[in-house]
């Protein structure tokens, strides 16, 4: 590449046409023909620019004119060259600046792209962290709530237990008194009718009291939240009490069929297993919406695993929803009626008992949930 300062050739400073114009002017002034060549010619005068000989000027008819004409030509070339040098330098410098700008621009773009990617990555991480925080908060809130509910239930059960005890005892004593009264009263027909009715009332009250006592027992099992270590659990009993509780909570009658096989005792947290059973059963109850049937089976499965099957013939779960069943806060229920934690909690409980939870469902046909406690 030519640099701005490379010595120019004659034609680069003065194109042929301009050279001829200049020679014509010199001829008009001097009256003699002049000739300008790039190659040396005998007797000709050198025309220099910056010490560089650019051409040879000759005037064969009047050689003594040559020197002055050559200086005049050099004078013209000096100013042409001055402009040309400045213009070339300006061109070189502008081009270099432009290239530098382009380099910087490219570097800036690359850096901008890096920062954009970094920013997007940071944004993603912030979003992920926010999700984790939200989830943890919700879980904390849920567990605190469940704990509060459990404590309340335990307190209520404890408070109800005493009055129920003396009511039951009083009812029995009242029955005995009624028998004694019956012997002392006149044995006419009207009195006999009153006594019979009285006895029926007392019996009904006793049955009611027993039911209250049973619910209280279930509540105590369910709310047994402070137990630290695994204890031997009677799984069938837990199933029965959970079913009672569900029935008591549900407003309509539930058709629950129990098929309980004889099982060995299971080491675990009774309250938590009840919770898992409750969550699964609650889903089944909501799936059948009061019209279908629920069947709960307990059995000894392969390799000594204890299994509890909860089957319903309710609405079933779509394949799409099945994929997200265990996602925390995934719920298909209307806002406010489901936390989306039921199966998540159930799965966590099963994992804590070295067990697993399996769900098979066919939309419109029903769902089967298997809780399997692996034998240790």
């Amino acid at each position, binding site marked *: 590449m030519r640099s701005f300062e490379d010595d120019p050739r004659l034609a680069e400073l003065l194109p042929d046409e301009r050279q001829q114009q200049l020679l014509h002017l010199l001829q008009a002034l001097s009256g003699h023909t002049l000739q300008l060549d790039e190659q040396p010619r005998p007797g000709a005068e050198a025309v220099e620019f910056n*010490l560089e000989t650019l051409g040879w000027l000759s005037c064969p008819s009047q050689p003594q004119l040559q020197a002055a004409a050559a200086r005049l030509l050099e004078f013209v070339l000096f100013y042409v060259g001055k402009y040309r040098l*400045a213009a070339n330098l300006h061109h070189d410098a502008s081009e270099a600046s432009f290239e530098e700008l382009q380099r910087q621009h490219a570097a800036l773009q690359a850096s901008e792209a890096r920062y954009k990617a970094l920013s997007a990555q940071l944004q993603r991480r912030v979003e992920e962290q926010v999700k984790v925080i939200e989830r943890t908060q919700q879980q904390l809130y849920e567990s605190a709530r469940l704990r509060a509910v459990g404590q309340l239930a335990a307190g209520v059960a404890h408070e109800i237990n005493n009055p129920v005890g003396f009511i039951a005892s009083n009812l029995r004593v009242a029955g005995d008194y009624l028998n004694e009264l019956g012997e002392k009263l006149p044995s006419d027909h009207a009195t006999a009718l009153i006594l019979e009715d009285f006895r029926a009332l007392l019996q009904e009250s006793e049955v009611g009291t027993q039911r209250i006592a049973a619910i209280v027992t279930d509540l105590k099992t369910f709310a047994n939240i402070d137990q630290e270590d695994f204890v031997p659990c009677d799984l069938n009993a837990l199933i029965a009490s959970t079913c009672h509780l569900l029935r008591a909570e549900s407003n309509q009658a539930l058709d629950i069929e129990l098929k309980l096989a004889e099982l060995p005792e299971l080491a675990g947290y009774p309250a938590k297993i009840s919770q898992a059973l409750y969550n699964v059963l609650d889903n089944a109850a909501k799936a059948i919406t009061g019209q279908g049937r629920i069947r709960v089976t307990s059995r000894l499965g392969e390799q000594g695993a204890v299994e509890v099957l909860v089957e319903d013939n309710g609405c079933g779960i779509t394949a799409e929803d099945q994929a997200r069943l265990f996602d925390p806060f995934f719920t298909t229920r209307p806002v406010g009626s489901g936390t989306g934690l039921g199966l998540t909690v159930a799965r966590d409980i099963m994992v804590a008992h070295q067990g697993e939870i399996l769900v098979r469902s066919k939309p419109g046909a029903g769902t089967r949930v298997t809780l399997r406690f692996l034998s240790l």
Partner: protein
Amino acid sequence: MADYQPHTRKLSLKVVYYGPALSGKTTNLMQLHTLLRPQRKGELMVLETRDDRTLFFDVLPIGLRGAAGLDLRLKLYTVPGQVQHDSTRKAVLSRADGVIFVADSQPAQQDNNANAFDNLADNLQKLGMDIERLPLVVQFNKRDVADAVAEAELQARWAQTPWAPLSMASALHGQGVVESFRQLLVHLYPQLDREYRLAETEGIDATSFVRLLSAAQGDADA
């Protein structure tokens, strides 16, 4: 970088006057044009603008013809000192064979000197040139101003650099200008001699190299 064309026997060299704005680079060149009586001397080309500030460069071509026919040319350039003309400065500096750094002796200008010297080092590096190996003379100009920084102080400050001793000048009065130029020629000759065997094949030894290019008005052997 010297440019040698074997078919014309032409060796072109380039010396650049560098330095902060208004330190007297163009004045140096104008004085050289007046004072020097080199073997060959071309026209001084000054491309000044309306306010006499250099916008592009100034150039003074000088030359000598060796005994064996070598056509040695030396173009002396100045760069624009103003900060904003850096790309022009870099273009002029490219392929320089030697640099004369013209610093300003006024106390207030010492920061500008340092900045300009950094800029020189920076641009040399960008152009792929090694400042340690480049023939470089540092001239402190304007010795005539009343409050000029003392020479002893300047010499002490630069004593540990490869560019000591400094050259002192008062370009406006033509003092030190030719001496600075000669100092550079002395630095320049060994490199040229190594590459082009000036003494051996061209019959140009160090003394005649300096004398033929920097003979001054009033010198005995001019």
